[in-house]
């Protein structure tokens, strides 16, 4: 059982790290097809990463240790989170530590590292990106923690494996108004955290609209490869977290090899489906103006507050 547990953790890390570029490639491909283009193929992000890793590392003039450490820190926080979140199994050696607040904070730590790197360049773009990213991150935080609150009420804990196991045992929790509202709120928060449309456009290079891309404008070579990998991993991880919380079926709750294999296949299927839906939605949405983003986030905050209230009064009544 222990071996299965360790394998599950390793499997989660490898799945997120290796799968992230594929998921991004897949989303770009879906998008390209919907827009009538041929697309570069699902493997293109892998090819990009290989190319970038072989280039020489570059230090832009005037940048310091924060700039150099940020990409690795971004990837490191995501790797730790990938080990914690029950993507494949709820029964791992680290599942006791998989606290939802810790996971959310670790993701925020990655954001913070990149924002500092953006400021460290001393350019207008870096500062602009950092400033906008931190503003969005600050406004997302209440939504995320209230969703955490709503999810933890029925389970009685903020431990993610316990929440997931509870939902598997008692699927009615997910179909409750509280569950649905929390999904909607958390989904908006995930869009904002990963810098997707309508909050940020990951494929823009029009300076005045950039958030994430402006922050990382100075990166090149292997550093850029890490930054891109980190961003892709975060998307994969957060979509995986969403699917674990709201479509938990298939996640291994016991320590058997067969359940783990099934969980891996189902995780891939869920991510492919979620990625396709997101990519398709992005074709039809436009990015909103930066100063309309707070309205969107305020809306998601309201949903999360409703989720908590609904959860309290519905469980309180029963």
């Amino acid at each position, binding site marked *: 059982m222990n071996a299965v547990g360790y394998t599950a953790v390793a499997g989660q890390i490898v799945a997120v790290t290796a799968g992230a570029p594929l998921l991004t490639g897949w989303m770009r491909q879906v998008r390209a097809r919907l827009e009538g283009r041929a697309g570069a193929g699902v493997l293109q992000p892998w090819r990009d990463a290989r190319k970038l890793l072989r280039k020489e590392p570059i230090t832009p003039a005037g940048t310091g240790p924060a700039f150099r450490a940020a990409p690795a820190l971004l990837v490191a926080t995501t790797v730790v989170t990938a080990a914690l979140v029950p993507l494949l199994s709820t029964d791992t050696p680290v599942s006791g530590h998989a606290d939802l607040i810790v996971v959310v904070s670790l993701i*925020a730590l990655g954001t913070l590292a990149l924002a500092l790197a953006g400021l460290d360049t001393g350019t207008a773009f870096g500062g602009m990106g950092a400033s*906008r990213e931190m503003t969005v991150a600050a406004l997302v935080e*209440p939504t995320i923690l209230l969703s955490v609150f709503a999810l933890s009420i029925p389970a009685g804990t903020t431990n993610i494996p316990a929440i997931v196991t509870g939902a598997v045992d008692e699927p009615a929790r997910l179909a409750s108004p509280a569950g649905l509202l929390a999904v909607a709120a958390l989904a908006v928060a995930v869009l904002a955290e990963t810098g997707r449309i309508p909050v940020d456009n990951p494929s823009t290079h029009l300076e005045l609209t950039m958030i994430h891309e402006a922050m990382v404008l100075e990166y090149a070579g292997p550093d850029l490869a890490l930054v891109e990998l980190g961003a892709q991993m975060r998307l994969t991880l957060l979509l995986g977290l969403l699917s674990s919380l709201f479509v938990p079926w298939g996640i291994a709750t016991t320590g058997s090899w067969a359940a783990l294999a099934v969980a891996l296949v189902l995780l891939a299927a869920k991510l492919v489906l979620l990625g396709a839906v997101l990519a398709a939605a992005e074709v039809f949405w436009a990015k909103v103006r930066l100063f309309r983003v707070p309205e969107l986030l305020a809306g998601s905050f309201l949903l999360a507050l409703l989720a908590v209230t609904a959860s309290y009064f519905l469980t309180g009544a029963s």
Partner: protein
Amino acid sequence: MSLIPAALATATALAGAGALAGCALPYRQRVPVVGVLTAGVGAGGCTAGAAALSGSRWSAAFPGLLPLAGAHVAVDALAGLFMAVAGAVVVAVAVYGIGYAAGHGAHGLGSHSAQAVLPLFALTLVLVPVAASVSTFLALWEVMALASLLLVLAEHRERVSVRQAGIWYAVMTHLGLVLLLAGFALFAAQTGGETFAALRAGAHTVSPAVRGLVFVLVMLAFASKAGAVPLHAWLPRAHPEAPSPVSALMSAAMVNLGIYGLVRTGFDLLGGGPAWWWLGLIAVGGASAVYGILQAAMASDLKRLLAYSTSENIGLVLIGVGASGLFAAYGNRPLAALALAAALLHVVNHAAFKALLFCAAGAVLRATGLRDLDRMGGLRAPMPVTAGLFALGALGAVALPPGNGFVSEWLLLQSLIHGLAVPGVAVAVVLPLSVALIALSAGIAAAVFVKALGVGFFARPRSTQAAAAKEAPRLMLAAMALLGAGCAALALVPGLLGDGLDRAVDAVGLPGSGAVSDGGLKVRLTDVSATLSPLWVAAALTTALALAVGLPRLYGRRRRRVNARLWDCGGGAPTPRMAYTATSFAEPLQRVFDDVLAPEQDVDVTPVRESAYLVERVRFQHRVPDRIEHRLYEPVLRSLAGAGQAARRLAGGSVHLYLGYGFAGLVVLLLILAVGW
């Protein structure tokens, strides 16, 4: 058993010696001698506090020490916690102060008066929690207020703003004292004794209305000392204008005593109260947390930013204390103990990182003469140690792992999230909102400290002073390193504090929850489990970081890093003036919270005399005033001034008239006495 009185007696003796040395010694010997003696005061307090935390108690009465009532002292674990925190901060800051004052000349912090007062201030910080009667407490409290006021005024020759800050502080702290005096006098009159033991014993006989009045009066006084909104107005003035070691002492040790007073009175002396007390406290805490951090986000003065961040953290503590009282009012004592433990742990954590941050800001101020973030920049190159320690403190302040602030904020969130087990609609409405407010303040705090670190220490220097900065002297660095080690220890092994924290919570009559234990952080309640092991998280992060750095190197061809130009859009190398400043960094947040902050903007266009269309000069001014100060304090000040003006008509200058007033007053008083009794 005899460790506590011995340590306290030593601290008192050292403080006396320090005060004498400050008065008598010439400048060269004064600063180091007073510094060492003050550090001794802190060490004494820390020892006594640690002894109390490990379970010893001590109480004594000195009938002759104060007129009428005599002095009563008692040390329990709650007092011990605050003594230990204050003592530890004093030790580090006193050492820091030696280095700081040595460069400043014989004025300011190095002057006779400041050096004489410094050990006394340190002593009162340690001794206020020891007081066990109303008169002893108020006497120590007032000496602390006066000593800190003198220290705030230390640099009055250098800046006019110091005097203004001093006036604000003096007035507000004394209004607080009046409230405190009124509240305690009422309480003592109703219970028939002024020692804390008598108050505790008699609290149940007091009517609920009077208890409520006592709590409100005392809460206002303590909240104002703690810097809670809307009674915070003195804090963002006095903390930045004080010399940096004094700012550190005030922000990391003195404001805590407001929390101490609140916990002592609310839980221990009054023995808890109805829900509305605590709902009010949570409201004050929530307002302080969000408003404080928003103002910090707008501030471009580094020390002002840190001062507002103190308001924020005190707000978080108040939410914890309020939640604890609320849970206790509804009868859920284990949860109440958990919330109080979270609040007290946050007091400890805040003291550690805020002292470090103020010391680092002081090192920058000393090296560059700058407090304005917009003119700093690039300090990480000339001041690497200071920058690193500031980053460590900032990590604690943003409440993200692996910082120390995260541990207590996590505990606070856990207690609030599990608080829904407590019945009552008020709880169901207040707790989610509190969680949201904590989350919002944590989110904005991240932006605030990214701004402070990124704009102040990273990028390139924006002024000649910043470019010419030099690293702080070794003594200051050593003191800051001590505080940094404290932050790291609190962040990684908070379990070391577990037993002491339990005893402190026990001391106010809530059962210790065992919330923080064995190397990790464990919340164990009846049917709730949540575990956090900060050490484990930090180790995992370090391993993952090593992997993320190492693996790509194995794959890529190993090449040396090459330097390159920044991307300049083909327009020539960007100058430091093009970099984002603190003001521009905060602009999006300011726009989002436009309605709350109400920024003021003033554009003044002067055309040349010959033509209205040719512009000679454009003056642009932008200010984000403290709106609460605007709306709440200015009308009061205006009406006071108005009343004063109106009253001038009563004073015509005629002695007969004045004698007549005296006569009339006496007659009215006698009439009241005759009719009323």
